[in-house]
């Protein structure tokens, strides 16, 4: 297990990222002081409930936040280059070339009026000075690589002629067409059947080693996290509350929220009579986050201090960061948390 936070040159590092949406109702702090690191060739899973800011943080990395959203603070370092300081032109060079992204909905993420070949080729030609013919050849090769059969004919098909799994493969082919350093996969399998999910994740893992790229996997599926990621960052209410290696996290979750998350997932071999844990209360409204620790209204161990003082993300144990006042000596405040 490597010590992520100490690693000298992370592939991508996000520091204190704040992305706010200025709506008529007020400022939505969708991402509010997010920090994480993703090492070269590794997979970092960003985990959290819906609405915690995972997807916005991913789009922030791509700098694809549209009005009324705005990245107000922070640094996003891609191999040392601060993307937030880049011009739009420089940024376009990064998108689809050094960082690519695949999305949750393969059904709607492809443009219905262009052939898939056209859409993949477009990604190649925008970044690389190649002829049409060459771009097409590479497109076909790419389609083959994501294990779509009869690539020569399918290249001229339209998205509506393909199944959801096929389309996600096309998305992957498109994303990897320029051999990016980082792939952001935003819930890549959520919309797919379970069997297809596995195939896609397998494909991603295969391609990761082949292309030597880092993957930022955004998901709420802890099962998936356990299978594929090296590191995990748990997000709650626009912030990371816990960040460590996957094995460590599952072995000894320290933050009460992480603990709640883990116990709310059924695991194999769990006694039938054992009840699933439910985290009481609701995900806080990003317009009005609670004061102090944002988790305190739902936290079983919260005290007066939690309402007033916001805990910082600190290294509570070598290679294990968490944001809770009550973690002492690397022990969770919740009894029996260590498994």
């Amino acid at each position, binding site marked *: 297990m490597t010590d992520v936070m100490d690693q000298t040159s992370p592939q991508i590092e996000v520091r204190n990222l704040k992305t706010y949406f200025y709506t008529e109702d007020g400022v939505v702090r969708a991402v509010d002081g997010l920090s994480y690191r993703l090492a070269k060739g590794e997979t970092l899973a960003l985990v959290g409930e819906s609405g915690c800011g995972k997807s916005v943080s991913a789009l922030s990395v791509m700098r694809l936040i549209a009005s009324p959203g705005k990245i107000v603070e922070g640094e996003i370092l891609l191999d040392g280059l601060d993307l937030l300081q880049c011009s739009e032109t420089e940024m*376009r060079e990064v998108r*689809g070339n050094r960082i690519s*992204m695949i999305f949750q909905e393969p059904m*709607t993420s492809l443009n*219905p009026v262009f052939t898939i070949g056209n859409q993949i080729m*477009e*990604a190649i030609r925008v970044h690389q000075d190649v002829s049409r013919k060459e771009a097409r050849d590479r497109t076909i090769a790419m389609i083959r690589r994501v294990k779509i059969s009869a690539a020569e004919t399918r290249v001229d098909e339209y998205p509506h002629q393909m199944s959801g799994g096929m389309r996600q493969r096309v998305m992957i082919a498109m994303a990897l067409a320029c051999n990016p350093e980082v792939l952001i996969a935003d819930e890549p399998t959520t919309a797919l059947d379970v069997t297809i999910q596995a195939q896609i994740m397998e494909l991603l893992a295969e391609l990761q080693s082949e292309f030597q790229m880092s993957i930022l996997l955004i998901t709420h599926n802890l099962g998936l996290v356990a299978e594929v990621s090296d590191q995990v960052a748990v997000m709650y209410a626009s912030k990371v509350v816990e960040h460590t290696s996957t094995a460590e996290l599952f072995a000894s979750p320290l933050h009460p929220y992480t603990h709640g998350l883990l116990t709310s997932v059924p695991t194999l071999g769990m006694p039938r009579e054992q009840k699933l844990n439910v985290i009481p209360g609701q995900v806080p409204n990003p317009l009005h986050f609670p004061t102090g620790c944002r988790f305190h209204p739902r936290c079983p161990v919260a005290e007066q201090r939690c309402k007033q003082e916001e805990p910082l993300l600190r290294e509570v144990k070598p290679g294990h960061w968490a944001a809770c006042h009550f973690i002492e000596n690397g022990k969770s405040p919740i009894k029996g948390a260590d498994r």
Partner: protein
Amino acid sequence: MHTYIIRRILISIPLLFGLLTINFFLIHAAPGDPTDIFYNPDMDPEARENIRRIYGLDQPLGVQYLKYIQGVVLKFEFGYSIAKKRPVKDEILEALPNTIQLSALALLLELSLGIGIGILAAVKQQSTFDNATRVTALTFYSMPSFYLGLVLLFLFAGGVSATHWFPASGMVDIVRHESMSTLGRLGDRAIHIFLPSLTLGIGAAAGISRYMRGELLEVIRQDYMRTARAKGLTERVVVFKHGLRNALMPIITIMGLSLPFLFSGAVIVEQVFGWPGMGRVAVDAAFQRDYSMFLAVNLIFGAMVVVGNLVADILYAMVDPRVRLS
């Protein structure tokens, strides 16, 4: 595709035939008859009877109908215009190209202005341009075309001498056109068609611009637009390649349906600007109870609806790969 088009045209034939039949009995049921234009104390009732007899108006309606249909079906003859004293076909062949010219240019203006402004307004949503065009579009959209025509006439066709840039009526300068060079004639035609086509097209352009803006804003929110941006495409390519084609699809439908309206809009515009087209033929025919002319004009308007829908369907199929004509 070809069989589809042919089938659609074949289907429309009985439709148009029915239209012709209904119109035939409707116009004959309307009060008055074509000889009313000779309503004048100097004219003896005897002379009116003569004219009725010459045109066969004294025969039973059923007989008139059969004769008319026989002419249309067997000889593609549409009878004689009582008011124009010539075969209906001749009058229409003279007027129709003029209306097509006017409508085509109006359509071009409608689409280029409407789509162009719609795109800009969508891309610069909530900007001054967006707000200004929204107000302007609403103004033009709700302004009756005869009124707009009169305003344009007074502003730019002689009402104000300082801005007398355009002629007030007609297709060419009837005195000088003959003696102009080829280029001069082209220019002469251009300045004559400008105001009428603008009047005809701008209301529809205003409508299209709002649809276009709405559609594009809708499309911009789509996932595939985000995908396109994530590829590193420039905003221009994202909007114009990925956004436009999708946003245009509903516009094509609207356009196809609006084609007949363009023709009926020409009725008013042609009157205001003295444009010698089908609109004026239609108005005269209706008021003068010029039966044969009225029927032929309505047949053409009916055919316009059929063609408009067909063109929209074909264009739609060309733009949207999910649609197949069969």
